[in-house]
């Protein structure tokens, strides 16, 4: 979908840092971390939020991750809602950590307990794919 992992314009950004190029802020590049399971957990929230900013700083800046539940104002995280929960479970059945999904702490807490309840009633697997 929006996989813009082209490392274009990065070598040039260092050499021509003195020129009057507008700082490359209008095309957010994705960070190079491998996506777990090929799924993109990030909702298309507002971009921006560079840590270092400015040309000649770091090559890749991360898009600021936002909590899906805060943005969409989903408050009810229920163990029955498997479709929602499955988005936060890795292929192996593990709960995906907050630092990868960007979910805020209070929501991650509810999310993990909901996933554990769903596992208990065999809606989600403890390990591996749902057979």
């Amino acid at each position, binding site marked *: 979908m929006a996989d813009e992992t082209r490392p274009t314009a990065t070598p040039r950004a260092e050499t021509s840092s003195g020129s009057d190029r507008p700082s490359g802020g209008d095309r957010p590049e994705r960070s190079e971390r491998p996506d777990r399971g090929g799924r993109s957990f990030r909702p298309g929230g507002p971009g921006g939020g560079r840590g270092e900013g400015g040309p000649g700083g770091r090559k890749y800046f991360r898009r600021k991750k936002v909590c899906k539940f805060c*943005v969409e104002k989903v408050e009810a995280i229920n163990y029955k809602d498997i479709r929602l929960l499955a988005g936060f479970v890795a292929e192996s059945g593990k709960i995906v950590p907050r630092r990868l999904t960007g979910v805020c702490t209070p929501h991650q807490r509810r999310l993990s307990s909901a996933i554990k309840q769903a596992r208990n009633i*065999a809606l989600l697997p403890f390990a591996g794919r*749902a057979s």
Partner: protein
Amino acid sequence: MNRTYELMFIVRPDMAEEDQDKLISALESAVTTSGGQMKNVERMGKRRLAYTVRKFHDGIYILLTVDGSGGLIHELERRLRVTEPVIKFLTVRIDEEQKRLDKIKAIRDARRKVSAAPAPAEASGEAPAVPA
């Protein structure tokens, strides 16, 4: 002290419809005799289990919503445990969560009313904004 619980249980996939009805009505009578109330019965139907339970790969999911005391839930769980076709069950208390959700909803509604009355433009700004 009555609380609201959700009782979800799985029965074996080859259980007949009448037997399920019998089981549910037996549970319901147990609820009413101890002063509780069965608020809802939902048959979620047959679905695949995420892992093998007692050598079954499928199961029929049934969800009950029950008002009652903790002692009643204890009794219901005991019954489910001794009922042979029930292969798994889970009880979750939902009234506190519901209270929390209602509170959030009330706050949001109040805020929407306040922001909608003086300036309708502000209501659109409340939604996930476009990046500047």
